[in-house]
């Protein structure tokens, strides 16, 4: 399993649970929308952090 795939799996599972637990979204459609938003945010921010850290010698 690649690091990217692990991150995508993690994002997907956390997004599913967050969408189910959200108190601000009451219908399935808005929960789905929120879940997709959380998933996208996780992946994009993860990639952005990876891009920033890539040149560092760590």
């Amino acid at each position, binding site marked *: *399993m690649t*690091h990217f795939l*692990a991150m995508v*799996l*993690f994002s997907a*599972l*956390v997004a*599913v*649970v967050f969408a*189910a*637990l959200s*108190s601000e979204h*009451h219908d399935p459609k808005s929960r789905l929308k929120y879940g997709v938003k959380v998933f996208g945010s996780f992946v994009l921010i993860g990639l952005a952090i990876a891009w920033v850290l890539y040149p560092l010698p760590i």
Partner: protein
Amino acid sequence: MSGPSPASCWLRRKRLSGEKPSEKLLPDLSAANSEQRLAVSPVRTWIACAAALVLPGSGHLILGRWVRGIVIAFGIALMFSSGFLMQGHLFKPERGEWISWLFSFANMGIGLLYFILLAADIGFQLAPNQAAAPTFEYGNTFLLVAGLLNMLAVMDTYDIAVGRKT
């Protein structure tokens, strides 16, 4: 002699302007009120919370939130099993290693399964080449987050049971 307090002056101004002071102070629950809200007995509340803590998703099932309960159970179970598949391991409190207490607390969030695995000593031992696996740290993170997500699910169960959420 002291005059009226600033709070009473503010309320009086609001009343004179025709605005209800509570409207701005209270959260908007109109969306939640429009749906069915549940407030169960304290005994059932505690039973649901205890069940949610023991088995992920079961608290929601007890409260009749079938879809949400199944989604939570599925998500947490998949995250927990993925953690093991990625060579992660569970933590138990070790004397002198404070970080292990923190990680153990997060792992314990998964509920009964943690204690069954602890009793059977499955998933706690670290094989010699296990830490060298590229996904080792991911596995640990998945196992920790699975427990933490279940703690959130327990709080959600409580909120639903007391009628704070739909």
